[in-house]
C-alpha cells in the first residue's frame, strides 16, 4: 500500500513524493504542496478528517480524500 499524507500520525513528518496530478487542485500546489516539500500533521478533527497540515511552513487544512492522493515518504 502506498503511504500518503492521510496515513501520518499527529506530529509525524514526511516528504511529499508525488501525486496524481490531474486530481490535485492547482490551489493546493500554489499554497506550497509540491513534491520534495516537508509535510507535518499538526492536528486532525474527529474521524481524522479534515487534516491540519504544516507544509514547509504553510499551514493549511485539507480533507482526507485529498490527503489520500498525496504520496509521501516518512522521515
Amino acid at each position, binding site marked *: 500500500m502506498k503511504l500518503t499524507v492521510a496515513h501520518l500520525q499527529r506530529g509525524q513528518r514526511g516528504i511529499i513524493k508525488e501525486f496524481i*496530478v*490531474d486530481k490535485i*487542485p*492547482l*490551489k*493546493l*500546489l*500554489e*499554497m*506550497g504542496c*509540491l*513534491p520534495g516539500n516537508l509535510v507535518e500533521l*499538526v*492536528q*486532525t*478533527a*474527529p*474521524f481524522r*478528517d*479534515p487534516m*491540519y497540515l504544516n507544509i*514547509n*511552513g*504553510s*499551514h*493549511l*487544512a*485539507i*480533507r482526507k*480524500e*485529498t490527503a489520500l492522493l498525496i504520496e509521501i515518504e516518512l522521515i
Partner: protein
Amino acid sequence: MGKQINVSLIGNPNTGKTSVFNQLTGLNQQVGNYPGITVEKKEGVCKLPRGLKAHILDLPGTYSLNASSLDENVVIELLLNKNDRDFPDVAVVVSDVENLKRNLLLFTQIKDLEIPTILVINMADRMVRKGITLDIGILEAKLNTKIALVSARKNTGIEELKEMILNYRQISTEPCLHASIMDPEYFERLRKAFPNQSLYKLWLVITQDVNFGNVNRHSLDNGNSFHTKSNSDLKRLQQKETILRYQFINGLLKEGLKVDLKSATDLRIRLDRILTHRVWGYVIFFMVLLIIFQAIYNWSSYPMDFIDTTFASLSEWTRNIMPAGPFTNLISEGIIPGLGGIVIFIPQIAFLFFFISLLEESGYMSRVVFLMDRIMRRFGLSGKSVVPLVSGTACAIPAVMAARNIENWKERLITILVVPFTTCSARLPVYLIIIALVIPDESFLGFNLQGLTLMILYLIGFGTALVSAWILNKILNIKSKSYFVIEMPNYKLPMVKNVAINVVEKTKSFVLGAGKIILAISIILWVLASYGPGDGFNNAEEIVTSKYNPEQEPETNLEEKIASYKLEHSYIGILGKAIEPAVTPLGYDWKIGIAIVSSFAAREVFVGTLATIYSVGSDEEETIKNRMAAEVNPILGGPLFTFASGISLLLFYAFAMQCMSTLAIVKKETNTWKWPILQLVIMSAFAYLVALIAFQVLK
C-alpha cells in the same frame, strides 16, 4: 492637481493587505460593488508627498492569478484590461514576512505582466520574535523591484511605501521569471501568432477558461491559425508553472532569508492544541457562540430602546410643528416610522458584525471551519458554511455573499439555499411582539418561558437549515469537483482600526440597502391606507357618526371607530378583505394578512404595518401590543391573538421566505432566477402548511 496615480493593492488572504490599505487611506475610503457582480470593491485616496495623490484599489485576496472564484477573477480581469479606468500605474503586492515563500508566487506572476510592481513585506514587527532576518538588497536585485518593509500594526514603513509609489516610474517592468521557460516551443508559437502582446498575459487569457468560465478565450482563436492545447495539457502546464516559480523562489530565499528557529516561540502551536482539540475545541466554540448571542441581546437593548423613543418623539414633533395636511401625515406617519424601523436594527447588526470581524481578524474563524467541516459535510454543506450560517443570524444578505469562498459549487449552492432559514435580525421584532402577547411571562424550571420560546425559534431556524440541506444534498444531482483547502493563518490580535472600519462599512451598506426598501414600502402602505375609493372611505365620518350612540361610548372611541372604518374601506382594506379567506384558516384576520403580504418585501415591516393599520400612529410596542391584545377574531370571537394563532404566526415567520433583497442577492450569486424562485415558493408554501397545521391542532 494633476492626475492621480492608480495603485492596485494585491496579495494573498491573511497578509494584512486590508490593514495596509487602511493605513494608506485612513477613513478616506469607500466600499462599492463591481458592476454586475456583488464582489466588494474597496477604494480610497492616499495623500502622497509633494501634494500628489494616489487612488488605491484594494483588490480581493488571491493566492495566484489562476482564478478559482468570482472574487479572484476580479483581480485578473483588471490586470488583463489595460483600458480599465482602474488599471494600475503601479501594483503593490502585500506579503507577510512569515509566509514570504508562498506570497512571492503571486508576486512573480504579477511581475510577469510587465506592470511596475512594489513588494510590501508586512508584519515586519514579528521578525525579531520569529528569528527572521532578510537581505533586502539581494531580494530587490533578484526580484527586480523595490521592497518596503512595513508594519501596518505599528504604522512603520508606510511613509517609505508612499515615497516608492510616488516614484513608481523608476521601478523596472522587466519580469523576474519568464513564464515562457515552462514550454519554450509553445510560447514561441504564441509569440508568433500575437506578436505585440505580453506573453504571460496571453497565457493567462488562454488558461482562464480552464479554471473559470467567464473569459472567452475563443476570441483568440478566431481568424488565426494558432491552435491552443487541450484543457488537461494546459492544467499540467499551470502546475509546471507553479513548480518552476517555487524553484525560483526557493533559490532566492536561500540567499535572502534566514530563520533562526531557536528564537522562534510559537504561540500558534500552544493555542491550536486547545482551540482545535477534538473535545475542547467544540466546547470553546459553543461557549464563544453563547457569549456572542448573550452580548448581542443584552448590549443592544439599551440603544434600541433609545432609538425607539427618539423616533416616536420625532414623529410627534413633526406633527406639531408642520402645518396639518397630507404631506405632514406622510412624513410623520409614513416616512419617520419607516426610517425608525431600519435604524432600530443598527445596534444588533453592528454588534454582530463586530464579533464576526473579531473572529475573522484573529484567525479563529479558520479553526471553526476546520472543526465543523466533517459535521457539516453530513448535511451536504462544507465547514466553510459555518461562516454564512453564523452571519445569517444578522442578515441573510452578507451571509449569502460569505458563501463565496466555498470551492465546491454544490456545497455553496446548498449553503445559499438554506441560509434564509436562520433567524435573521429582521425576524426578531416580529418574534418579540408575538411572544410578549401569547407566551406567559412565567418561569419554568428556572427558565423564563418567553426567553425559552425565543431560543427554541433560533434552534428551529438552524435545525430546518440543516435538515433542508440534507434533503437538498440527496435530491440535487450536481457533479462538481470536490475539494477543500483552507489556510490556517497565524493568530493575531485584531486591529482596532480594521474592526471599526469593517463594522461601520457593513452596517452602512445594510442600512442603505434595506433602508430603501423599507422606506418605499412604508410610503406605499401609507398611501394605500390613507386613500380609498367610493363612499365607504370618503363618507366614513357620517356613516360611523350616524350609528354612534353617545350614551354608551365615550367620545375618543368614536374617533377610533371612524379611523378603523375608513381603513376598512381604503385600498389596503379592500386588498386585505380579498386575501382574508386564505389567512383565516391560519387564525389571522385581514390586517395580519396585509402585514404578512407587505412582509414579503422585508420581514421587519410587520410591526410597522400593523402600527399603521391599527392607526395607533406610533411604533411604540406597548401601545401596539395593547391594541393587538384587544383585537377580536372576526369568525371565532374571542381574542384574535391566542396561543394557537400566535404560534402559527411565529412558525410562519420562521419558515417563510419574506425578503426581496435576499432573493435579489441569491439571483446575483447563482446567476439564475431559478433558485430564488424555488426558495420563495417552497419556503413560503412550507410556512403556510406548518402554520395551518399548528393553528388547527392548537385551537
